[in-house]
């Protein structure tokens, strides 16, 4: 078993915590590096699960659950070596053992091989302070879905304690560029778990790929591919792998985004001379032109109600974010601070924006309260781009550079929690965080 070290700041101290990490072949993302969390973190203990013979043990469930909670920045999981006891059932729990360590919440569990080959994962969550059982559940999964079960447990624990739906059992798509500038240059669209594990390739090309995005039911992805020698918009079914070029007009075909109901695709075409926003009805493939302006109009994204689009336009001389109401085509400018604001996404509440913001020549991810026009810069690195929100709106993933290499990074919406997903395989970029997925029943 391969042990890697993570540095997680806990109560102002840097403690080294060992987590077991399983390698899934030639993974395109390395292990997460946690850079920052909240000053005051909830102290939780996730005790190694008891397991019956026949349960795969190369990927301990408790470690995956604890690491999910740790990378949320809100939890400080207790290191295994510091546990005074290792209960796996309700009867074995002595609250005193945990109270003395200052632990507020406790997770214990067992995984048992069933007659049919399924594994029953039983787990319990305790409130140590009030000596109360908060939750108990059993997940029946095949061995191949043990990781998914761990992420579901982390989601549930997160929600029971914070009141916010967890987004650990989600997926990421991103572009991996290898051997850039050489004859062997290649681009691939990759899909991984939200922690970067289990990465697999959805499509590979010698030509650039960009602007990957999820359908709201997470069964399809759309992206821009240069496979014909020019930018085209492609739809790809994740389960079957079947692909379809949906637009290949002269000029730019790019920036696809699915409507919240999944029936329409907003995209950018320059077939009429310069980049304009269009909406395609995915049933009959008809196109409706939304913007009419001689400037660059690009990077559309839907409002949560599906009634409007936000987009980037340089109609005022430099790129700023605008909103267009689809019923009336009325356009309203949303950003006013700074001379470069682009590629915006709305939070699930529809009242806050995140976007790429240039400040003193450096590109950061910024957050804006639309009602109070309050702008906050969330990232301190440079060349930050492509922000994509977790479906619960608590974190966003973006692309940045680290010593000249493209890496992915995650920041909480208040800028306090930070972690990185580097890649030893090449440059990674253009991340898109999936919607909520029922990973125990769906194969995505």
């Amino acid at each position, binding site marked *: 078993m391969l042990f890697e070290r993570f540095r997680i700041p806990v109560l102002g101290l840097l403690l080294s915590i060992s987590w077991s990490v399983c390698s899934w072949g030639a993974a395109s993302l390395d292990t997460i590096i946690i850079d920052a969390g909240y000053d005051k973190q909830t102290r939780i203990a996730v005790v190694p699960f008891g397991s019956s013979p026949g349960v795969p043990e190369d990927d301990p469930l408790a470690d995956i659950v604890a690491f999910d909670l740790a990378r949320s920045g809100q939890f400080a999981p207790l290191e295994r070596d510091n546990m005074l006891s290792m209960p796996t059932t309700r009867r074995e729990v002595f609250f005193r053992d945990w109270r003395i360590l200052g632990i507020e919440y406790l997770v214990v569990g067992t995984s048992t091989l069933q007659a049919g080959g399924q594994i029953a994962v039983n787990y319990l969550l305790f409130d140590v302070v009030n000596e109360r059982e908060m939750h108990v559940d059993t997940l029946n999964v095949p061995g191949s879905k043990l990781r998914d079960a761990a992420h579901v447990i982390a989601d549930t624990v997160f929600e029971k304690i914070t009141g916010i739906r967890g987004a650990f059992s989600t997926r990421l798509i991103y572009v991996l560029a290898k051997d850039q500038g050489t004859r062997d240059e290649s681009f691939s669209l990759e899909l991984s778990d939200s922690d970067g594990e289990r990465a697999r390739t959805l499509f590979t090309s010698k030509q650039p790929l960009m602007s990957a995005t999820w359908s709201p039911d997470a069964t399809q992805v759309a992206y821009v591919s240069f496979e014909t020698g020019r930018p085209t918009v492609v739809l790809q079914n994740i389960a079957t792998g079947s692909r379809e070029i949906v637009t290949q007009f002269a000029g730019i075909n790019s920036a696809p985004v699915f409507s919240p109901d999944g029936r329409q695709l907003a995209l950018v075409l320059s077939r009429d001379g310069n980049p304009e926003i269009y909406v395609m009805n995915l049933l009959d493939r008809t196109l409706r032109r939304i913007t009419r302006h001689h400037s660059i109009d690009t990077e559309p994204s839907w409002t949560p109600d599906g009634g409007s689009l936000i987009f980037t336009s340089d109609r005022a001389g430099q*790129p700023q974010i605008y909103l267009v109401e689809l019923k009336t085509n009325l356009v309203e400018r949303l950003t006013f601070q700074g001379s470069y604001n682009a590629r915006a996404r709305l939070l699930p509440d529809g009242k806050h924006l995140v976007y790429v913001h240039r400040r003193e020549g450096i590109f950061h991810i910024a957050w804006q309260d639309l009602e109070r026009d309050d702008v906050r810069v969330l990232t301190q690195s440079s060349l930050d781009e492509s922000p994509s929100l977790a479906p619960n709106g608590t974190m966003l993933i973006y692309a940045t550079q680290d010593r000249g290499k493209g890496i992915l990074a995650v920041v909480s919406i208040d800028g306090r929690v930070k972690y990185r997903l580097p890649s030893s395989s090449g440059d990674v970029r253009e991340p898109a965080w999936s919607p909520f997925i029922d990973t125990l029943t769906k194969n995505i």
Partner: protein
Amino acid sequence: MLKQRLRVILALMLAGVVLAGCSSSGKDEPVTPPAPEPVQETTPAPKPPPEQPSDFDSQGNPLDPSTRRPLSRTFYFDYDRSVLKPADLSALEIHARLLRSNSDRSVVLEGHCDERGTREYNLALGERRADAVRSFLISSGVPARQIETVSYGEERSQSPGSTESAWSRNRRAVMIYR
């Protein structure tokens, strides 16, 4: 003799154009025999063209007629701008002349950006840069059918690195002769 042959070829070509018009295929099908003779004249040439050195090198790239050296095919832009630099206009004027006099040749104009800014916005900016070259060529009399544009945004950098010199080499439009 040569004059007569030219007439025959022109007649064949006209027939070919009419036929191509009927078939309404949008592709550039080889409807004429691949003739190395000059085909740009619409009326019989007053005299046979003199033996001129080729306008292109062995790779098919254009040569500067006065110096016989490769003509620059890459034009650079200022940050976030898509305006051609005055220093490039004389080279572009020669490109326009070569394209006008070699109607069998066409160019793909690639627009590129440096890595700063968002990828989609840069895709649009790259198109503007390619369009700036296109507009110049068209206003210099090059038929639109000889020009194609494609933007790669920041996806195909020429120089790696995040320095001002790398960025300035990446903000470019490139002419690819076909």
